């Protein structure tokens, strides 16, 4: 982290300071009475964060000190001293909250916080009892009120949310923490809020692992039904606030809905309107996410939606390779087109469009689409006439109309997959080989698209470097200057020499 930045010289000094810090803390703890001044010095150190002292070290030391103090019940022991210590303790918490938002320190700070919470739950400070809910509240408030989305802190907090007690606490608290204003007025806050909601995973795997952050919390076990109710209420408030939000927030709401909420909703049918609106008003990622939601509804609630294929069809356009939800789109399309009872001309339109797009797409997507086309041909055997025309006819120009938005009317069924033949000439061997499937008999089993969806251009580059064949074939004609002996282009169009 920060250490890497400082030079070797500073490094030694740092370690020296660290040792000093530790010995100081030890002496403080070993003393009969707590030396308020030294303790204050530590807190001050965290406040000032001097240059030679990384904040994380100070935080760790403070963690050790306060853990011990909490265990000793020192905070309540001596009236006057206890109060002082408590004051300092609260101050430390405030400082920790500050650090939580600093990107480099957030993981350390969060760790210290959670450790302190653990100890405090065991040895609660006098008036409060049990779980220190207010601490969590503090953390959540800090996160929500941050000026920019604190991504690292959020991911770290997400790890703690895997513990059922933390999960429950957060759910409880979030309801009261919902910002009063509408989301469209406070986009950053809303974003932070939604990101926190996005951390609440009530999936089966989390429930079955049943981890608890605090040992004692195990006694009152996690009640799914109750929490589900809480989540439902939370969702209702979100829906109430989330009108006319901007695209980013809308996307986030949809992501939260799809990833975390939809499976636990009492009455998902109510979502239909929301999803339909999202689908029709937006295109690109939002529409895609909405489509996924609709798909879930179709699966679970048996709703019918007439134009879903047309929508899906129109989501395939060249720009889509460059958005984040590309893999999701392929995944969805694969599922939507699984049925073998779809009309052939519809699927043919998809096949043609995919093939057409493969001619414009980056390498990794071209491979996916070729495989996808092959899968579709396998599923719908009638479509094999796209590559095996039965009657030999004259030369024609492609009857497929790519500008037609209705896939059924695109006349793809009368076309042929010339795109795949062209792709056999692709410069990347992987694509060319994939496109060769039309030459021989089709494979028996469908290709598994899942491993392909996560591939990047870099992976293909690395794969190519690892290929074993190391035959460095050279040009046999000696270039005398920048130009190639024949077929030079660079020197033809550039005035370089």
């Amino acid at each position: 982290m920060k250490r890497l930045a400082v030079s070797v010289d500073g490094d030694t000094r740092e370690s020296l300071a660290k040792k000093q810090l530790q010995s100081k803390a030890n002496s403080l703890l070993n003393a009969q009475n707590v030396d308020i001044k030294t303790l204050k010095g530590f807190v001050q150190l965290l406040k000032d964060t001097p240059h030679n002292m990384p904040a994380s070290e100070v935080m760790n030391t403070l963690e050790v000190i306060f853990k011990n103090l909490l265990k000793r019940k020192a905070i309540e022991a001596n009236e006057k001293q206890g109060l002082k210590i408590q004051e300092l303790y609260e101050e430390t918490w405030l400082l920790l909250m500050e650090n939580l938002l600093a990107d480099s320190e957030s993981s350390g700070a969060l760790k210290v916080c959670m450790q302190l919470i653990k100890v405090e739950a065991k040895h609660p400070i006098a008036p409060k009892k049990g779980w220190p809910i207010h601490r969590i509240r503090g953390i959540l408030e800090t996160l929500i009120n941050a000026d920019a989305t604190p991504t690292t802190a959020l991911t770290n907090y997400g790890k703690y949310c895997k513990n059922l007690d933390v999960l429950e606490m957060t759910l409880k608290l979030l309801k009261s923490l919902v910002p009063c204003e509408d989301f469209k007025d406070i986009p950053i806050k809303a974003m932070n809020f939604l990101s926190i909601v996005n951390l609440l995973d009530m999936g089966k795997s989390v429930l079955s692992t049943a981890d608890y952050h605090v040992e004692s919390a195990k006694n009152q076990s996690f009640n799914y039904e109750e929490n589900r109710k809480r989540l439902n209420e939370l969702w209702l408030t979100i829906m109430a606030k989330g009108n006319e939000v901007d695209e980013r927030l809308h996307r986030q709401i949809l992501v939260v809905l799809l990833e975390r909420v939809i499976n636990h909703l009492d009455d998902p049918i109510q979502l239909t309107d929301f999803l339909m609106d999202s689908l029709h008003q937006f295109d690109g990622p939002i529409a895609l996410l909405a489509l996924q939601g609709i798909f879930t509804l179709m699966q679970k609630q048996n709703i019918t939606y007439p134009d879903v294929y047309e929508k899906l069809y129109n989501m395939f356009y060249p720009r889509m390779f460059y958005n984040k939800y590309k893999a999701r789109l392929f995944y969805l399309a694969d599922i939507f087109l699984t049925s073998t009872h779809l009309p052939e001309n519809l699927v043919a339109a998809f096949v043609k469009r995919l093939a057409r797009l493969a001619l414009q797409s980056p390498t990794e997507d071209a491979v996916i689409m070729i495989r996808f086309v092959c899968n579709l041909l396998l599923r719908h055997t009638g479509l094999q006439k796209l590559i095996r025309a039965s009657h030999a006819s004259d030369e024609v120009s492609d009857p497929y109309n790519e500008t037609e938005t209705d896939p059924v009317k695109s006349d793809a069924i009368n076309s042929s997959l010339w795109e795949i033949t062209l792709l056999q000439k692709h410069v990347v061997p992987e694509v060319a080989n994939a496109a060769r499937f039309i030459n021989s008999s089709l494979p028996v089993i469908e290709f598994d698209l899942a491993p392909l969806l996560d591939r990047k251009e870099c992976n293909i580059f690395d794969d190519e470097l690892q290929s074993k064949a190391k035959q460095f074939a050279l040009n046999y004609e000696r270039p005398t200057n920048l130009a190639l002996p024949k077929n030079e282009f660079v020197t033809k169009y550039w005035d370089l020499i």
Partner: protein
Amino acid sequence: MRKTRYKTMVAKGKKASADAVYAKKTIKSANPFDNSTAQSSKRGNPFDVHVNKEKFKILGRICKHDRGMPGVSRAKALQKRAQTLGQQFAVKHKTNRFKDNRIGKHLSGDQLTESVMNARYLAEKMSQVRSNQKAEKFNLNDDELLTHRGQTLEEIEQYRDERSDDEELDDEALDADFTAAAHFGGEGDSAQDRQAAIDEMIVEQKRRKNEIAKEKDEVYDLTEKLDANYKHLLPLVAKATKDEQDPKPPPDAYDKLLKEMIFEPRGSVADKLINPDELVKQEAARLEKLENERLRRMRADGEEDEEASIAKPKHRSADDLDDGYFLAVEDDEGDDTLAYDLDGNLGTHLNGKKELKAEGNENEDNDEEGEEEENEDSDQESDSEVDNLSDLKESDSESEQEEAPKASKKKAKKSENTIPASLDTSIPFTIKMPKTYDDFTELLSKHATAQKATIIERIIKCNHPKLEGVNRDNVVKLYSFLLQYLKDSFEDANEQEIREHFQLLSKLMPHFYELTQLNPERMSNTLLEVIKEKNGEFRKNHKMYASLETLVYFKLVANLYSTSDFRHPVVTPCFIFMQHVLSRSRVRTRQEISMGLFLVTVILEFVSQSKRLVPAVFNFLQGIVHMSIPKRDVEQLEITPPFERDGPLSKLLALPANQECTKLKPQQLQPSDLVTQTITPDFKVRALDTSLLLIKEALQLVEEHVGACYLAKPFLRLLSRLPLESYPEHVHLHHKEATELVEKLAAQKMKLLAPAAKKPKALRLLEPRFEPVYDDKRRPKMSKAKEERAKLLHKIKREKKGAIREIRRDTAFVQELKLKQTLKSDKERHEKVKRIYQEASVQQGELNELARAKKKKKF
């Protein structure tokens, strides 16, 4: 032919045919003995042959016993018995035996060859030596002394007087003067008496004899001496042949001519200087081989198989009708075959391409010719300058590469360029390999661009791996230094320097090539490492263009490697990298636009031979045209990222309506474009113009592929939107050309995809299978084992019968012998008895006569 002959036969007339028929009949009806006589003259008597009559002729049965010669076989059997049984019978009851122990005792007559006789003789001799010469029993040298007339050859040698051989018998006769004087009366005036004269003569004769003898002795001594000396001299004069010792007459004209003719070469020498024509031929063959290899690599593994399988069927059945049923696919292949045009240039290109390049080729040819002449001139010049060492070096390097005339030609071209540089004597001729990169840059920084190349060349020459083993590492080091140097010079080049750097790169290109040839694997790995590193840098932020030196490395790859391969360890990663850059990096400035265009040109070079498809190139060119179209704010023209659909970046290259650039001259893209950020109107025109040309080139490359229309169509919509009014004339022209080509391609018609027609499967032809069925009613059916046994029993029975017969015949033979013996002895006895009787009767007769005579006397 046959028919006509038949006709003539018919026409010969009835008689002839009747004769033929008759002849046939006679042959058929002739008895079998005729046949046997006709076959060979050895079988003399037809009555010796016995014919076994066959009741039924059975097809396929070989009959061995149809005829036999009882007389002959009986005689054979008899003879055999006589030799075996007869012999045994003869020695029956006899105790002594005759034993033949000679070598080859079983051989007879002709078989007794010389070698056998020699062996016998030797064995005999040895046994003699062993048995007789007991005295030499202990002689270790086993050799025999050879003798001649009782004397050993050694003794004879010792006493041999060589003089005796050539001792001429002196004529004892009196000489002519004396006879003339003494005989026949002689001169009358001889005062001395005869006796005195004779005495005198005798004395004279003796004196003369003594003299001669003395002389001879002397001569003998001398020869002895000479001989002794000669033996010493012998090794010295051994080589001198006899006729060489003779003094030779001075050669005349004829001799000279003869000698010349003798020494004139009669056959061609193996490695003579090859004349230019052959050189060209060799080079063409070499190029053809390399080109074929390249084509093979260019095809994908599967593609090749498919093409091959279509071209010729893998299997031809024996009853293939050979009716050319297979689809003729040769037309396609014709495109790829190698061909040379009239000038002998390699014309591996497809027809369309040839047309394309026709203009350029002509120009190039002309240029080349001109240059050749210039080269010759320059060569002559360099010849005249004898002390120009660098030229000598050049020629050395030329001779190294003699096998490639083309290369040497180019080399000559290069030498012409470098002459001014190499004339510079400030550069030492041997340059040590710098130890560190700093030393290397220091060395180069002292000199101008042109000299830098010379320095590199000399370093390579001095550190050629053939000279020393260490140099193998040195050249790799040099290569990495050069790469580093390129990086340093291009990394932050400014507007002024950039052209110079490109010039340096151009000069260095042949050296890069040479270095790579020295050790392809290590050099390639070095380059690959560098590219990998660059890719790592690029990955960190793929929205930013890769650095300029990366593009330069790509250009280097294009020049050094065979980029047309289907899969290549260096080229394929480069392809992926370049595509990645083109499809992801943002295009916002002049530098980024020109870098993209540079990448596009490099990629086109990569695929110029393989004609493969690189989608990113088409996307990028569309993007450039898209940027040149001025758009109103609301309207959106679809375009693939990284280009913006709308906003200011979407019309970066569009000329403002009020601006007029119609007067700009056609211009290539400038190196300075690669380093400047601000977009000027002339750059806008330049970029669009080049893109239009590149669109044409790129589409021409993929023109033959099925589905090229899909690549052309998107351009159609963009090109039609381009407002041309404010552009200069040449842009109009290029736009028109590009549009024409795009329209042509977009209207491409294709055949529906269908798998290649397969040969209908022929029905399998089965061989008829025959099984022997034995259902003879006379014999009961048996199992196989039983049948086998029955067969064996039958055989045994027959063999037994035969054996019994043989034994019976043997007994008969022996009985006959016995009978003969008995008869013979009886006869002998009978004769003896008869003789005794005869003698007795004669005796009796004599007695009777004596008795009668006594009686008479009595009476």
